[in-house]
């Protein structure tokens, strides 16, 4: 396979086990439990290169380390952007950090969204909840190189209208003539004038060429479990569906086995998997 920007960016950092100090330069609240942080290296100014879909291990000193996908624009080497939902010990500690605070960062790690393979195809981007964050760099990349792709459709599902992530950007993307964006929520009151229902229903309504489409899917695992059969039903085969998986991680480089998923390690063989390579594992409980 020829070396592309994506494969070059996926090379492991010099010492992948040593966290590098990064300073928080901006904190933005996105939702009641979700926030975005911008990070710059505390020393030196080497641009940070990553491929859409990759993640970093963020270390809060004295608390612990968590894998978090990069949510910024891959064309922006000046800062590293992460969008984080506070769900427990480390993510709560990250939420308490203010501008100027330091964190340790290891990365980038993992496999990217296959944006070189999807060139020439209609691209379906299907996200749920905070799962839009790992997809956002792919959206930037596709829009930065818009002429390389066919139709671009973004289907996004959230819990309620108040839980819609990146709302401003969704509205901006929706206003473009070269992208189709549809957003649904699980529950709403009469003030919401958009669709209500699950994201799989949006997929059925999208007008795209299913036989020449590739799908990038990220969200709660249960959402992905329902999205894949819907995609299959309308004609998108498993070898053109890519999903981003989450498992608990420690080393992030394939040493410790913490993130094992069947025969694969999510940190090294994933997080982005072509669905046909993991389909047998997907419905196995306790994996």
């Amino acid at each position, binding site marked *: 396979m020829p070396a592309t920007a994506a494969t070059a960016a996926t090379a492991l950092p010099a010492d992948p086990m040593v966290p590098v100090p990064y300073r928080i330069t901006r904190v933005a609240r996105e939702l009641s*439990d979700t926030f975005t942080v911008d990070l710059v290296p505390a020393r030196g100014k080497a641009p940070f290169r990553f491929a859409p879909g990759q993640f970093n291990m963020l270390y809060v000193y004295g608390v612990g380390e968590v894998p978090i996908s990069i949510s910024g624009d891959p064309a922006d080497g000046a800062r590293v952007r992460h969008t984080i939902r506070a*769900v*427990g010990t480390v993510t709560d500690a990250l939420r308490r950090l203010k501008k100027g605070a330091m964190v340790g960062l290891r990365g980038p790690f993992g496999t990217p969204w296959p944006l070189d393979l999807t060139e020439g195809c209609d691209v379906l981007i299907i996200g*749920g*909840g905070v799962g839009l964050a790992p997809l956002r760099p792919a959206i930037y990349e596709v829009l930065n190189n818009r002429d390389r792709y066919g139709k671009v459709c973004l289907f996004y*599902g*959230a*819990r309620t209208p108040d*839980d819609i992530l990146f709302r401003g950007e969704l509205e901006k993307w929706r206003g473009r003539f070269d992208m189709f964006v549809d957003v*649904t929520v*699980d*529950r*709403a*009151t*009469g*003030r*919401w*004038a*958009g*669709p*209500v*229902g*699950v994201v*799989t*229903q949006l997929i059925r*309504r999208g007008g795209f060429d299913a036989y020449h489409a590739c799908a990038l899917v990220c*969200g*709660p695992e*249960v*959402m992905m479990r*329902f999205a894949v059969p819907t995609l299959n039903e309308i004609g998108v085969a498993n070898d053109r569906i890519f999903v981003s998986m989450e498992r608990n991680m420690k080393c992030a480089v394939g040493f410790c086995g913490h993130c094992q998923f069947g025969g694969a390690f999510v940190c090294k063989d994933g997080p982005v998997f072509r669905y046909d390579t993991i389909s047998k594992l997907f419905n196995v409980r306790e994996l």
Partner: protein
Amino acid sequence: MVKTGGMYDLLAEHPFFAGMDKGRMEVVAGCAMNERFEAGQYIFHEGESADKFYLVRHGMVALEFHVPGREQTVLDTVHKGEIFGWSWMVSPYTWSFDARAVELCRLVSLDAKCLRGKFDADNSLGYDLLRRFIPVMAERLSAARMQMIDMYGQPPDRK
């Protein structure tokens, strides 16, 4: 003879009737009516007699549930190419939710009493229609389950 040409064409365009035998569709078209609802207008209310079902040709319909003391809750929305309303098939034949046009909606309604009469005369027509309804009902049920499990919610110990 009732002229059903226009209605026939509208039914033939709708995915719900895709592949239906021409003769059968002509019979069904005899029970169909074109309807238009402005944004905000209610199509029916909970508790009213369910004597129709609807095909959406254009627009978006919100299916709502009213809980006293709370704002209307939208349970689902129905869009172009989809159908809603199966209370006409199930006793006591009353609507169990409200339906509201979110935007200008063009619908085709099918009269339940008229359809039942046609089914009595031709059971296979009833079977054909039921076979079309069941997948839609199954899909809605599965979607409702997904909505119920609150998949985007916080982990259980944080709620």
